[in-house]
């Protein structure tokens, strides 16, 4: 499917926002890295040490041919090969809705990385609600441009659904950015009802809930635990 200029611009904007969430010199894994534009940008702009996973052969080979470190494969099967906390950030951009097991992927992101950056199109956006309400058919928008029968997007969810899942999994939202369909940017705050209506696309910086260091009296060592195993 050919991408419209709008779509390309919105992806670029997405990338710039993702970049703004990442500290310099970090180790970054990009899942579904395509030809590697984002990781190349991160390598260049913020000296990130990058690696990508890409399912599509043509895209993976283009990324490798640019000198990027990319594993051709399916993240849902291949993420298990990466060690615990081997990246500072794991990025899943516009892909969660295409995963077979989104919940499992979320916990994998935070096993492999100490933080995860997840962006997705909000199925609760007013245009989508309106289309479904008035037309009675599955909505087609710029962010979700496919017909129901040939879409890679198999799990639709709204902003609210996502926040509930994070809560259930003890995942902390460290930062969040909403984008309207016109590309206007705003922080997603507690006034959730309106946020869930105007957010066309959302970007989240996630981590596991920080636990207080546990002090064990019998020795002077402090065992700090930053991540919880949640299923």
């Amino acid at each position, binding site marked *: 499917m050919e991408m419209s200029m709008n779509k390309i611009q919105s992806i670029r904007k997405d990338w710039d926002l993702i970049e703004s969430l990442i500290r310099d010199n970090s*180790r970054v894994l990009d899942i579904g890295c395509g030809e590697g534009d984002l990781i190349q940008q991160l390598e260049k702009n913020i000296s990130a040490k990058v690696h990508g996973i890409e399912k599509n052969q043509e895209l993976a080979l283009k990324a490798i*041919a640019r000198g990027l470190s990319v594993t051709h494969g399916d993240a849902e099967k291949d993420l298990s090969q990466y060690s615990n906390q*081997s990246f500072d950030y794991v990025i899943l951009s516009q892909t969660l809705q295409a995963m077979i097991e989104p919940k499992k992927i979320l916990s994998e992101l935070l096993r492999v990385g100490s933080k995860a950056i997840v962006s997705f199109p909000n199925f609760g956006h007013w245009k989508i609600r309106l289309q479904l309400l008035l037309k009675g058919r599955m909505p087609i928008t710029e962010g979700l441009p496919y017909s129901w029968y040939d879409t890679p997007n198999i799990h639709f969810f709204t902003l609210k659904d996502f926040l509930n899942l994070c809560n259930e999994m003890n995942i902390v939202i460290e930062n969040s950015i909403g984008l309207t369909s016109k590309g206007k940017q705003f922080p997603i705050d507690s006034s959730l009802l309106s946020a869930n209506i105007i957010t066309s696309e959302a970007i989240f910086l996630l981590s596991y809930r920080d636990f207080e260091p546990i002090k064990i009296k019998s020795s002077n060592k402090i065992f700090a635990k930053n991540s919880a195993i949640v299923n």
Partner: protein
Amino acid sequence: MSNIELIDDNNLKCRFAIFKNANLKLTSGEVLKNFKLAFNTFGSLNENKTNAILICHALTGDQYVTGNNPITGKDGWWARMVGPDKPIDTNKFFVICSNVLGGCAGSTGPREKNDSGKDIYGADFPSVTIQDMVRAQSKLLDVLQIDQLFSVVGGSMGAMQALQWSIDFPDKIKSVIHIAGALKHSAQNIAFHEVGRQAIMNDLNWHKGNYASNNSIPERGLAVARMIAHITYLSEDAMHRKFGRKLQSRDIISFGFDADFQIESYLRYQGRSFVERFDANSYLYLTRAMDYFDHSESFKKTLEFIHNPNEHLKYLVISFTSDWLFPTRENKEIVEILNSLSKNVSFLEIETDKGHDSFLLDEPDLDFTIKGFLESNYGNEYE
């Protein structure tokens, strides 16, 4: 005192590095007092010596990677990959390719004379391993005064050597391109090799490996070995596409045992022409070297616990969907270990029906990836 000599051989169109009193210790414990390697170079080494690439050949390859091979009269075995303006561009890179230890294109092996200088080694040649081949290659690089290779590239047995380089000499290389290989030679692969070896050793002309002194050649055995091996290099789909059940030079079947089918005729031709260019004993030694290759237990531990300065190393692993000799699964084991240790690795599985031999054939995706990987990484590093 050891003494090393470099000579050009105009008849064989290659160069020789001759190591005298070198006492090369082999994995088996035996020692080669003297040895020589036949090699060729293409392109030129730059001033800072940063652009050298070593290409490791597969089981039946040789130092004639590109250009004309004077033994066969044909193009080199990877002429489509290596040369001026080719994916491995000799306008940019200085390419070195040597015949492996145990081979039969001029390097020390069972076909060459032993230390006495009178008799041919034959079956008295000591067993060699992939590690021994790599150690000999590293001596050659010392002679050429190249401290660090930009890349080591190889497919199949060449991939085994490339991987071995990253284990034994990580500080002497910048990158590894490993095509259609594995951490270990599988039971199925050993089985096919064994059938090939039995064919050779059961040929009455083999004479327990000392056929040179009996003025005979185990041609039939070697041809059968090649025919078996050749089947494993193809895929069922490719064989069907290329030959199907087509008949050879006839309209009806013969009700006999002639080569009725094109595939039979093709295999017979492969067997026959192989005998003209390859030594039966060399075939035994080199298949054995592949069989003994096994890093399945040690690879991760070596990288993790043993001093292995490989932080700078960039790996590229490539497999082919229809390769059943070194399938994707086995190539991916290497990638999984490297990823689990946060090493810099890229992996690509190329969709093709051409089987294991894909790396030698016209695969534009392979060309594009190798060219891009080498030139981008070289550019990032040095330009």
